[in-house]
Structure formats: structure tokens, C-alpha cells
């Protein structure tokens, strides 16, 4: 098997602006692959193309060796490619547990009639889904918040809940869009451990878009650098860190931390 996720020649335009120009990305099965780059480099857009939420003008996306370029976002989610969002997208009107149970959506095995009539199968599956969701909440350390309203959680915990919701789907590939944004150093540290743990314990392949260099360099197997919508460099973290092009790109940027 080649890459789990392969993107070829991805080009995106917003009006007249070229956000991505012929970008390639390969994500090896079982890896943590990070996408870094200065602000406006097109990282989030690339994630959007992968997950089917941004329309590419050209290029192809294949996932699990199948061409998914034309597949809608929900179909990619249902196929096991699940993402989180840079600006939290929490179902604020539901409890934390219900949020995470929504994550189970793709592997709950009952239909409309089961729902309407609460058949035996419905109750069995619902119980399983609930336990599964509770396990995932426990995994991210939110078990005691299960019955809280999601909108009432503090920001850092909402981030964790979003990750719990994503891994409740038992994804093959998890796309994390700036999960450390807005977190303090200690929380970021813990997040790094959580991401590694997700890979270790559940065998999930992870793509990470992130600004926090320490975090990226610590946990990534491969790093891809984007600049102004183009591939700048790709390779293991140590190699990328030494790449003169990358150093130049980052030194030229003074609004980065």
C-alpha cells in the first residue's frame, strides 16, 4: 500500500487569489504528518481540500487508495477521514456526551425504523455507542464532564471535547487543524501527549496543521512546509529544520512566534 492520503497537484483559487498552487501531500499510514508554514500559506485550505470542504480548481485526492476528489465531505467523514476545526465547531446546544456520541455517527448500526420504534437493536447499539463515547471522553480526560452542556465548557476543554468527538468516529485518518491554538504551554504539552497517545493506542494516522513549532518537531514523523500556497520542503523534522529554504521563509516572517 502506498500513502493513506495522497494529494496531487492541488490548486485552489478564491476569486482571483491563488490559495494553493499544485500542492502535493503524502501521508504514510500510521504516521503523524505535520503541515507548517507562515500565516496565509494555505495550510487550513489544504486540510479543507482533503476533507472535501473546499473545492479545488485542479488536482486529485486519494484516500485508502480510492480517488475521493469528487466525494462530498460527509462521505469522506463516513469513510474514516475525520477532522477538527481551527475555530471550534462545538455543538453547543448538546451535552458533552451527546457531542461525542454524534462522533459515533458512522458506525452506529440501526436505521430510521429502529429509531422511531426504539427496537431491541436500537437499544443495544445505543448502549454500545454511549459506552464507546464515554471511553473516548475518558481518554481525553473529560469523563467527569459528560453531562455538562458543551457550550459551558472552558475553551481548552472544548478543544479536547472536539478531539474526543473526532476519535469517537474511530477514524483511519484524523486531520487536526491548529489544535493548540489558544492553549497555554501546559495545555499544549498535554495535547502533544494526547495526539501521540491517539496514534499509539488506536493506530490512527494523523495530519496536524500547527503553528507551535515545539509541538510539531516533538511529535511529527514527517513535516511538510507550505509557503504562499506552494510546497517548500518535505521530510523528517530534523531535515526540514535545517533546510535553508525553510529557515529563510521563517526568518523572513516576523509575526511568527
Amino acid at each position, binding site marked *: 500500500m502506498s500513502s493513506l492520503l495522497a494529494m496531487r497537484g492541488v490548486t485552489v483559487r*478564491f*476569486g482571483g487569489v491563488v490559495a494553493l498552487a499544485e500542492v502535493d501531500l503524502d501521508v504514510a499510514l500510521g504516521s503523524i504528518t505535520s503541515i507548517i508554514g507562515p500565516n496565509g500559506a494555505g495550510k*487550513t*485550505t489544504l486540510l*479543507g481540500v482533503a476533507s472535501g*470542504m*473546499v473545492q479545488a480548481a485542479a488536482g486529485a485526492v486519494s484516500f485508502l487508495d480510492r480517488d475521493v476528489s469528487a466525494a462530498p465531505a460527509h462521505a469522506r467523514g463516513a469513510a474514516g477521514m475525520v477532522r477538527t476545526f481551527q475555530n471550534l465547531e462545538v455543538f453547543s446546544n448538546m451535552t458533552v456526551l451527546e457531542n461525542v456520541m454524534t462522533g459515533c455517527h458512522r458506525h452506529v448500526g440501526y436505521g430510521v425504523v429502529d429509531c422511531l420504534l426504539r427496537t431491541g437493536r436500537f437499544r443495544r447499539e445505543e448502549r454500545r455507542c454511549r459506552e464507546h463515547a464515554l471511553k473516548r471522553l475518558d481518554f481525553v480526560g473529560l469523563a467527569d464532564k459528560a453531562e455538562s452542556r458543551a457550550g459551558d465548557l472552558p475553551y481548552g476543554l472544548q478543544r479536547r471535547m472536539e478531539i474526543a468527538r473526532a476519535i469517537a468516529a474511530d477514524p483511519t485518518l484524523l486531520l487536526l487543524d491548529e489544535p493548540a491554538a489558544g492553549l497555554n504551554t501546559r495545555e499544549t504539552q498535554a495535547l502533544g501527549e494526547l495526539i501521540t497517545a491517539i496514534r499509539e493506542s488506536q493506530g490512527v494516522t494523523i495530519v496536524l496543521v500547527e503553528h507551535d513549532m515545539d509541538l510539531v518537531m516533538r511529535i511529527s514523523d514527517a513535516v511538510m512546509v507550505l509557503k504562499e500556497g506552494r510546497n517548500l520542503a518535505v521530510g523528517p523534522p530534523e531535515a526540514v529544520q535545517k533546510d535553508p529554504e525553510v529557515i529563510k521563509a521563517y526568518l523572513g516572517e516576523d509575526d511568527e512566534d
Partner: protein
Amino acid sequence: MDLGSLLQYLITGVTVGATYGLTGLGFTIIFNTTGIINFAQGEFVMLGGMLGVAAHAAGVPLPLAVLLAVAAATLAGALMERTFIRPVAKASAVNLIIITIGASILIRGVVMLIFGKDTFALPHFSGMEPIRFLGAAMLPQSLWVLGITLLLLLGLKSFFSRTMWGRGMLACSYDPKAAALMGINVSRMAMASFMISAAVGAAGGVILAPITLTAYDVGILLGLKGFAACILGGLGNPFGAAAGGIILGVLESFGAGLLSSAYKDAITFVILLLLLFVRPTGLFGKGSGERV
């Protein structure tokens, strides 16, 4: 089908459409400043016509009666904002919609209580002798409608682009918090938007009243058409609303003339639906170039 009839349909359509456009404009002004869809907008139009009739019947000369009607409706707009909207300014959009629905029922009820359920007519502003050309006839009142609509449009355009108040109201629509930080009194702007909308709506109502007659319940249908006009044009775009109204009026008039007068509204709405399916944010609405 001869040119004369076609021209006739066009004239009728544009005249009625101008009122739809003014009503749509009223929706847009309030929506842009406060984010509220005001379901009582049609009642402002009705108030214009009914109050004009009442003032004229009381012996007030026609021009003064028209002005009085518009002024009174403006006051009603201010009153509505003050009593029903301002106390609950932070309510959710759908709650505010229900409040405006309640207000429309209330206004209609009060007018019915005072004037009864009869239909009234306002005299034409300058006689009823039709102007004939190219086989079509045009009532002088149509010229009044078109002229006043045009004047109002130009007036509003310079109000929003040139005056402090106008710019302040626009600022509220973009970002109320930022506007407040800039020292703009957001709640005063909200009241102003209700007053201007009421004035524009009432003006539309009073100038159309001689042609189409008026009654306590004409606001329902006019409100509906006005809402359709601003959706057709693209919600939030004042000139889209005006254009949408005229397109709607013309469609309706041609539909009635060429196809079926019974189904004229159905034809209009079918076209509106088809258009929305093709352009989900109206003719001149902002495209959804949203970045994920």
C-alpha cells in the same frame, strides 16, 4: 400581442413594482442595521395609505395629508422599536421575528378597530386623465409613483453614503460591537432604521393608494411581496431590493396579461423559486465565497 398591450403591462408592472421595491427597501434598511426581518413592514405601507385617507377625509388638503400620513407612520415605527424591540434587543432572531409578527397583528387590529373593514380610496394626486402614447395609457398617478420612488432611492443613497447617520447605520450592520466602540449609538441607529423604514414604506403605501385602493389588511400581501423583492434582489442590498420589487411587479403584470390573471401570483412565485434554486442568495446577493 401588439406593442401597446405589452407597453401597458410594463407600465402597470413597474408602477406596482415600485411599491414592492419600496417595501423591500424598508425590510433591507431594518435588516441591515439590526439583523431583524420585520414582518410588520407591510403594515407600515398599509398605515401610509390608511392614514392618508383618514387625514384627507378629515379635510386636510391632499399634499398635507400625504405628508401627515408618512410622518405618523414614522412615529409608529419609532414607537414600535422603542416599546417592543429595544427591551429585548438581545433576543434570538426567531423571537424577534415573532415579536414583529405580533406587532403586525396589533397594528392591523388597531386600524381595523378605528376604520373598520371597508376599502378606501385616496384621490389621485393630479387627476385621472390618462396619458396616451404608443397605444398604451398611463395614469398620471403612475408618474407620481415612479418619480417619488426614484427620489426616495436617490435620497437614501446619499443619506447612507454621505451623512454621519447613514454611515453609522451601515457600520452597525457590519459589526455592531465595533460600531459601539467607535462611539456610534447602536440603539439610536436601530430606532432610526425603524423610522426610515416606516417612512419609506408609508410613502410607498400612500402614493399607490389612489391606484389600488387600500384597507386595513392590504399590508399582509404587500409585506409578502416586499420580502420577496428583497430576497430576489439579495438580502441586504438596498438597490437589489428596489430592482427586485420592479422585476416582481413586471413579472406579475405580464403573467396576468399573457398567461392567467388567476395564477399571476403563482407564476411570480414559481419564477422566484426557480431563481433561488439557481442563485441561492438572490440576483445581487453576495456569493458564498466562504473560506473554510
